[in-house]
């Protein structure tokens, strides 16, 4: 698999504060990565370092095969950090023209990318007249100008209204479906869960986990059950080796699996035991539950 970014033992200190501590991970081509962590966990600092705007204290990072300089590599990267930063007195089109000059890209890309983010009809309005959602979409258009190998987004939905959030998310999914590698930093767990295939979890500058989203904790998931013979069901589940923890909330029983088991097999088993289920759902822990479990364990 092609490597896009390798980070080795990266450390950044701001005076006494260690913002990033001994961080290592690798970004491979074609995946959608999430960097997850509470505010102040070092997400933006890490991105700032690889994007050449923050100086590292120690460690190193390589773009692509390791032979490209950061300066050249950044021309193959599209990135937005924090808020969209543009010249307020220029129109959207003029701003993108400037970015084209920096990235040495042909101007013909501008209209194409403005079309993707749906800003074509406002391209000649000044940037200062844009709403936050439009600014954010313009920033994405700007990051896409060079058809980047990797798109880096730092809190892309921060401060947006629900419609804005939805627009940005569907835009990200659309871009990801074209095969562009995406690195998305966020403190919003459901955002990462909805969009990302891989995740790096940070807390206080330290890496807690890196890998696939669905393998974050070893768990076979759980069943949510309802029946009118509740007592019988509970007794049965307590004796079954396949099940661990049980949780009863009113009519709803939550049974956690110790071994893998699918819902139809379970349903058949219950039917044989003479228990008819009125509600059966097999679920895995949400990222939020996994994240809390992971951060609590440390």
């Amino acid at each position, binding site marked *: 698999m092609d490597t896009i970014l390798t980070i080795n033992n990266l450390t950044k200190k*701001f005076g006494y504060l260690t913002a990033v501590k001994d961080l290592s991970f690798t970004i491979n081509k074609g995946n959608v990565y999430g960097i997850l962590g509470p505010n102040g966990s070092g997400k933006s600092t890490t991105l700032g370092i690889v994007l*050449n*705007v923050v100086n590292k204290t120690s460690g190193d990072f390589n773009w692509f095969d390791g032979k490209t300089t950061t300066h050249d590599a950044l021309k193959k990267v599209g990135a*937005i950090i924090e808020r969209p930063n543009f*010249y307020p007195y220029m129109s959207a089109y003029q701003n993108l*023209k*400037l970015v084209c*000059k920096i990235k040495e890209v042909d101007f013909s890309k501008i209209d194409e990318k403005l079309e993707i983010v749906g800003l074509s009809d406002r391209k000649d309005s000044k940037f200062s007249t844009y709403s936050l959602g439009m600014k954010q979409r313009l920033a994405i258009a700007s990051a896409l100008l060079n058809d980047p190998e990797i798109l880096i987004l730092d809190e892309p939905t921060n401060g947006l209204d629900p419609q804005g959030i939805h627009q940005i998310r569907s835009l990200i999914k659309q871009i990801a479906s074209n095969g562009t590698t995406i690195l998305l930093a966020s403190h919003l767990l459901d955002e990462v869960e909805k969009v990302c295939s891989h995740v790096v979890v940070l807390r206080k500058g330290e890496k807690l986990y890196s890998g696939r989203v669905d393998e974050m904790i070893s768990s076979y998931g759980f069943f949510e059950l309802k029946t009118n013979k509740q007592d019988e069901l509970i007794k049965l589940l307590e004796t079954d080796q396949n099940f661990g923890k049980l949780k009863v909330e009113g009519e709803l029983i939550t049974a956690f699996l110790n071994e893998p088991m699918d819902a139809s097999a379970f349903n058949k088993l219950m039917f044989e035991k003479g228990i008819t289920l009125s509600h059966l759902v097999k679920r895995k822990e949400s990222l939020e539950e996994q994240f809390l479990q992971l951060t609590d364990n440390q």
Partner: protein
Amino acid sequence: MLRLINLELQKLLLSRVNKVLIFISFILPFTVLILSSIKINFFGFFTLELGELGIFNFPIIWHITTFFASYFKLFFAIVVVSMIGNEYSNKTIKQNLIDGLSKKEFILSKFYTIVFFSLISTILIGVASFLIGLYYSSYTEASIIFRETEYLLAYFVKLVGFFSLCLFFGMLLKRSAFALAFLFVLYIVEWLIFWGSYEAFGNADSAWKVKNFLPLESMYKLIDQPFQRIIITKYPDKMDLAYDYAVHWYEIAIVMGWTALFVFLSYRLLKVRDL
């Protein structure tokens, strides 16, 4: 290099405030020069024609026009300082770097633009002085016309030096207003150093020598004030007013040294700073 100038020109020329300031700093000295060269009739009481004072004679015209025109550099200094200040306040400096401009290219694009505008200003003043001189000057032999054109070189070096200083202050303080205030602070500091060295050496001559090495004074010294020289040319008997008004190579070297230092320091500052 053209790409970097092109980049910076787009940033500057699309902003109305900058356009006005650039217009003022280049067209105003030009206009003042033209106006002062025409005959002004004060309602028949008397006519004022500066040309008759002999100040538009070659070669002294080079000295006089460059001296007065250099005061208009303050307008473009505001542009220089704000082109840094705005990059910081809009955070576009960060976005520029992320988009793939290297830190070196960022500083160079500013510096090239400074050189570009200084060159335009020098050419404008050069052409204007040449034409006015041809019209008024009593001497029109080529050898006299092109004597002392080193004032144009001095003017150019002075502008580049001064704007590089503004560039450095802009990078250092990130705010346009602070940077301009710092120019004034530097002016005072130079006088304090003058006073300090006067105390140390005990005579004004040595103190002046020290001050001549300081940034603002060395830039000012490139083109000495022409008033005494005008008086001397009018009244040749006042030879006690004689002074050294020539442009010396070491004066140019000092200012170029400061220019290099300011550009380098701006780059170092950007390099070590976390944005």
